[in-house]
């Protein structure tokens, strides 16, 4: 198999690896397009002033939105990340490329089957498909095929690690980015096994071959449903380190600290299934407390560690490059119009301040009483998985286009502002959802004016304002999302670039590509960096902690006001 040497990173890129990254990334973006069109229809329905879709179509489109975004877009993209962080970053070949292509085919078949049954109205069961609500057996089968394909790709990634080590294609330990992808792959195995444990019986149940217990389904399903979000966290944290290195020469402050934090993810993160069941019957308080806290919040600790080491690494890297004035010159002089950098930074900030804080708070056993199944929940996860994972992956795309597709990023002026558009839109929408949910506005609900209900309900007028914010923010985010698709597709239609053109830069080549910042430093420079420290990051993390503490105790206060329950 032929290979080429990347003129920017000096890595040996085998053709199979290159094409597997390309095909998986393009497929991801196609499913993203379906998901973003669905999203637009959904916000235009939930915005009660527009209320566009009919009830059956609202739930159908909601089902399609969840599956195409959370499963097909993100997991296809993660497959591309695995091929990049494995064979490409380790300079090695793809072991058994035929298997890679076959599992891609299997995943595609599964995704198409699921989409067929959903759009044909044979699976109006929403993303969670809680039994005894039943979809067509083909729907469950499609998910099983997709999951099997993804599982095989994680196996190929592990095999690549073995091959790279045996063939000595790198020296020392694997890079931190690869290590992060490795933890994501381990979590993926745990997740997909939960998926098998729940979807195979459910498939048999849908054929009438066995019985299912509704609560047992919820517990095991969330072993898949939530753990899959933990794959995303591990993967996008790996991409934070990747983008930090590529865009501004962000360094790893301490390999031990960052890798230990990843290990905490692997050890504790799959316990998160519990925080979906905090106000469920049939489960005891000790079980809920232990599991919802990921064993005493050790996985939260891991995220708080990355929340320091990523910006700290960026600060140290920028200071090493001479941006040393004051507390924040490293931020003010950062390449804000490099969409790789802005996507990284917005992802980091919105994920931490928005998704992270709200997630821990509403995932507290008792506080969940005032959050469960309200709009606070999608408010939270649109700040984790959309502003966190999806936005980060968009930033990665702007580097993958020149590095792997060897094309210019098209519509460059639009691409430069796209992360801001998308980040602002998602944030506005999520803030609107969070506050509306605080008034008891339900999620997954077609009509909060409750037409033809036995009893009338009128939400206070302020809720209209928050729902308008959901509408406007959602539209803005959809514009950002469609811009991303347009940029990506038009880029691929462009002509291939030669090595010298890539190095030359110009419009459509992010600054980290045309002038890659230093990726390693001498011992003297390192000593100076350590003595300077990261004062700006220290300020930022303490602002974060203060916000966390205030939001946390404010929610206990709100909880204490309601009826006594228990």
């Amino acid at each position, binding site marked *: 198999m032929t290979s080429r040497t990347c003129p920017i990173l000096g890595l040996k890129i085998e053709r199979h690896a290159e094409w597997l990254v390309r095909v998986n990334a393009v497929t991801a973006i196609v499913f993203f397009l379906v998901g973003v069109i669905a999203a637009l229809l959904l916000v235009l329905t939930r915005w009660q002033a527009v209320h566009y879709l009919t009830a059956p179509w609202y739930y159908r489109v909601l089902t399609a939105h969840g599956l195409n975004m959370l499963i097909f877009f993100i997991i296809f993209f993660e497959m591309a990340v695995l091929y990049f962080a494995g064979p490409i970053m380790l300079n090695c070949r793809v072991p058994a490329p035929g298997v890679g292509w076959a599992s891609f085919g299997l995943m595609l078949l599964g995704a198409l089957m699921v989409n067929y049954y959903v759009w044909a109205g044979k699976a109006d069961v929403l993303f969670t498909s809680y039994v005894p609500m039943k979809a067509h057996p083909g729907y469950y089968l499609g998910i099983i095929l997709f999951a099997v394909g993804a599982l095989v790709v994680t196996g190929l990634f592990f095999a690549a690690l073995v091959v790279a080590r045996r063939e000595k294609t790198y020296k020392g330990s694997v*890079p931190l980015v690869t290590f992060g992808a490795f933890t994501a792959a381990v979590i993926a195995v745990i997740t997909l096994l939960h998926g098998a444990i729940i979807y195979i019986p459910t498939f048999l149940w849908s054929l009438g071959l066995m019985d299912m217990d509704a609560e047992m389904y919820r517990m095991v399903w969330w072993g898949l449903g939530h753990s899959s979000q933990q794959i995303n966290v591990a993967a996008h944290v790996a991409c934070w380190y990747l983008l930090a290195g590529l865009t501004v020469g962000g*360094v790893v402050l*301490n390999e031990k600290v960052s890798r230990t934090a990843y290990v905490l993810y692997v050890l504790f993160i799959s316990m998160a299934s519990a925080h979906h069941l905090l106000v469920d019957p*049939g489960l005891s*308080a000790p079980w*809920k407390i232990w599991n919802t806290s990921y064993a005493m919040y050790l996985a939260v600790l891991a995220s708080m560690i990355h929340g320091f080491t990523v910006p700290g690494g960026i600060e140290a890297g920028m200071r090493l490059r001479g941006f040393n004035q004051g507390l924040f010159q490293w931020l003010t002089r950062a390449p804000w119009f490099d969409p790789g950098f802005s996507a990284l930074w917005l992802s980091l900030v919105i994920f931490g301040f928005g998704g992270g804080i709200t997630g821990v708070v509403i995932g507290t056993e008792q506080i969940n009483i005032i959050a469960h199944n309200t709009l606070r929940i999608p408010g939270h996860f649109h700040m984790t998985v959309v502003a966190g994972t999806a936005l980060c992956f968009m930033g990665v795309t702007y580097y993958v286009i020149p590095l792997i597709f060897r094309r210019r990023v098209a519509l460059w002026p639009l691409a430069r502002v796209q992360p801001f558009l998308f980040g602002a839109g998602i944030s506005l929408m999520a803030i609107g959802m969070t506050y509306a949910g605080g008034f008891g506005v339900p999620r997954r609900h077609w009509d909060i004016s409750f037409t033809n209900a036995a009893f009338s309900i009128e939400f206070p007028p302020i809720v209209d304002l928050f729902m308008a914010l959901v509408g406007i923010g959602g539209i803005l985010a959809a514009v950002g999302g469609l811009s991303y698709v347009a940029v990506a597709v038009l880029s691929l239609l462009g002509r291939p670039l030669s090595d010298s053109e890539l190095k030359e830069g110009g419009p459509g080549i992010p600054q980290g590509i045309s002038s890659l910042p230093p990726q390693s430093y001498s011992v003297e420079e390192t000593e100076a960096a350590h003595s300077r420290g990261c004062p700006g990051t220290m300020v930022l993390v303490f602002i974060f902690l203060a916000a966390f503490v205030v939001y946390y105790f404010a929610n206990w206060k709100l909880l204490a006001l309601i*009826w006594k329950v228990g």
Partner: protein
Amino acid sequence: MKGLHSGLVSPEGNWWEPVGKQEKTWVTISFIWCMLLFAMMPLWHFKGGQNPSSGVRSKVDAQAFRERHQRFVKDYQVMVDGQPLMDGKDKNIPVVAPPPGSEVYIQASMWTWSPVLRLQKGATYSVHLSSVDLNHGFSLYPLNLNLQVVPGYDYNLKMTPNQTGEFRIICNEFCGIGHHMMVGKVEVVE
């Protein structure tokens, strides 16, 4: 000490190095905060008034729950001029006024909450929630008190209304095409 490098570089040799002062500070503070987050939950079980995991948690089949709910309605139904009082427009949901301390059975089905409850402020009731078909979501408006209602399971919690007024039960778990019409009512009187 070795040179700093980005996350794209393979670190050579032993990278198990001492942790810098600032990182150590942040990790320590984060760890303490995490322990506090953890301690709050058991603490609230002893000191707080809202805990979603107390009470009896047992399995119950749909038919048994339906019968228990009917008996509850018959026992405490509100009568006006010898006729049972109904509410909820054409849904005709019986109005029930259980005495303080009684067992209360709320039945969720597509797409009705039954019965309409008339409770007393400050009294404690032992509430049983279950569904006879799909998952439903119990969301007491405007309190924003939310509980999951799962078929086959009796969710039993003590509840003590602390204010008078009219409340609504919104269904906030998707339960099919009539989901948005599934609204119930609770009245709390002095």
